[in-house]
């Protein structure tokens, strides 16, 4: 009997040794995929047995959606609509749904979002990076051929008047996030982080049981001004810092245009972050709230009650809605910023 004791000990030791050496095998490694699509760099990270398959499906889906919605690709449905010369075009259900959603948001925000601004964006050079300040006369002339209400939808048949062009830039990526999240969920993924060029969508919580920690890009500099902890939702920011140029007159012109003036929106907000269940809603609202300004944003929030927001004004104040206050924390460098909580 006495000899068995040390034998067991030695056996135990050898077993444990091999455990530690191979321990990395047991660790649930996240599967991650990064690629260029829709003019940005996307990274999708998923945890779970089917992660690899799900990620491949996701990448294929994104490529497929990009083919549908690209404004420049001659084979895309958006291109077909823009070159229809007023004729009705039949599109896929995805495109129809996206456009329908975009039009609904336009209604909801009284036209702060308008998918027909593409010709004016091009005139400013935001689509090509050949920036220039158009004359007022030119803008007014182009404004004649804008207006979301002129789009006619009949099921999957879409009619856009002659000389009008649409683009899905303000909702496309958010909608893509929703579709990709669905694909991951269908594959049984319970924890994932989608970074579609800075548009963040999360599934579940992290595998270690904590919420996802997101850094919010500062509109003042290159840093991150705050941290937001979230689970199972989308977080999307619109800001003047994303794409802009400084004109010959020394003024800064950014890419978010006010559909009413055809010029960069100056509502007093310089960064708008929207948090919500659906990526499409967050994407569309972040753009439209940037155009609408603080007061209208608060009205919208009280009326619809289906999103949360963090607004930064040009007076260096931060406004956030009450439900996300506890998940929000300013980073050290930006502690002097004034934070106001918007109550219901």
């Amino acid at each position: 009997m006495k000899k068995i004791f040390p034998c067991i000990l030695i056996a135990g030791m050898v077993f444990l040794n091999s455990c530690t050496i191979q321990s990395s095998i047991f660790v649930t490694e996240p599967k991650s995929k990064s690629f260029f699509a829709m003019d940005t760099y996307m990274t999708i990270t998923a945890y779970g047995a089917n992660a690899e398959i799900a990620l491949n499906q996701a990448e294929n889906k994104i490529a497929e959606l990009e083919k549908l919605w690209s404004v420049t690709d001659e084979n895309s449905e958006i291109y077909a609509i823009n070159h229809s010369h007023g004729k009705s075009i039949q599109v896929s259900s995805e495109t129809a749904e996206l456009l329908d959603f975009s039009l609904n948001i336009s209604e909801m925000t009284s036209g702060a979002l308008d998918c027909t601004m593409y010709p004016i964006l091009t005139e400013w050079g935001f689509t090509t990076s050949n920036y220039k300040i158009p004359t007022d006369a030119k803008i007014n002339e182009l404004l004649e051929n804008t207006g979301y209400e002129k789009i006619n939808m009949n099921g999957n048949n879409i009619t856009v008047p002659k000389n009008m062009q649409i683009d899905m830039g303000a909702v496309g990526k958010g909608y893509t996030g929703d579709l990709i999240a669905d694909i991951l969920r269908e594959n049984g993924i319970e924890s994932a982080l989608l970074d579609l060029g800075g548009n963040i969508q999360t599934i579940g919580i992290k595998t270690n049981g904590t919420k996802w920690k997101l850094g919010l890009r500062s509109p003042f500099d290159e840093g991150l001004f705050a941290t937001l902890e979230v689970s199972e939702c989308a977080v999307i920011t619109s800001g003047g810092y994303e794409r802009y140029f400084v004109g010959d007159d020394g003024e800064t012109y950014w890419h978010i245009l006010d559909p009413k003036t055809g010029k960069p929106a100056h509502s007093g907000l310089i960064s708008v972050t929207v948090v919500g269940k659906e990526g499409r809603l967050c994407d569309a609202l972040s753009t439209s709230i940037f155009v609408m300004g603080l007061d209208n944003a608060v009205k919208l929030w009280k009326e619809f009650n289906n999103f949360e927001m963090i607004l930064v004004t040009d007076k260096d104040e931060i406004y956030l809605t009450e439900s996300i206050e506890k998940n929000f924390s300013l980073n050290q460098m930006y502690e002097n910023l004034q934070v106001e909580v918007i109550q219901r």
Partner: protein
Amino acid sequence: MSVKKITQLALLTAIALTIFIVELKIPNLVPIPGVKLGLANIVTVYAMYHCTAKETFLIVFARILLGSVFGGNISTIFYSLGGALLCLTGILILRHIVNEKYIWICSIIGAVLHNIGQIIVAVVMMKTTAVIAYLPFLLVFGCISGAFTGACAQMLINRVKNLST
């Protein structure tokens, strides 16, 4: 201290040192700093129950000092000293309440204390708390190696019963 006692202590130190040097030659299976069987502690555990506190300290410190000189790794002497100090203090209290028959319990607790001592020294020496990450591993391996050396010491005691003074 009688000549007989001195001889006995010298003999124990020599045995411990021999085991220590031999163990250095065994490749370390687990590449974690601080993890090893610590076979030399068979002698320490034995001495705990057969010598006075002072004598045990002498044996252990002589072994550590000579061990690091012969082993060619003087820089790690502080880790050994820190570990040994905590371990010895712990066992010196325990030996009054634990019968020699259950020497392996003392051995386990001693080994764990040794590892904790090592970590404390490492935190002070390296001025970073990063090394605390090793504590859980060291606890596990401390238990195993402690049980092993304890079992060895038990066998040793059973066999040399007649020889002991």
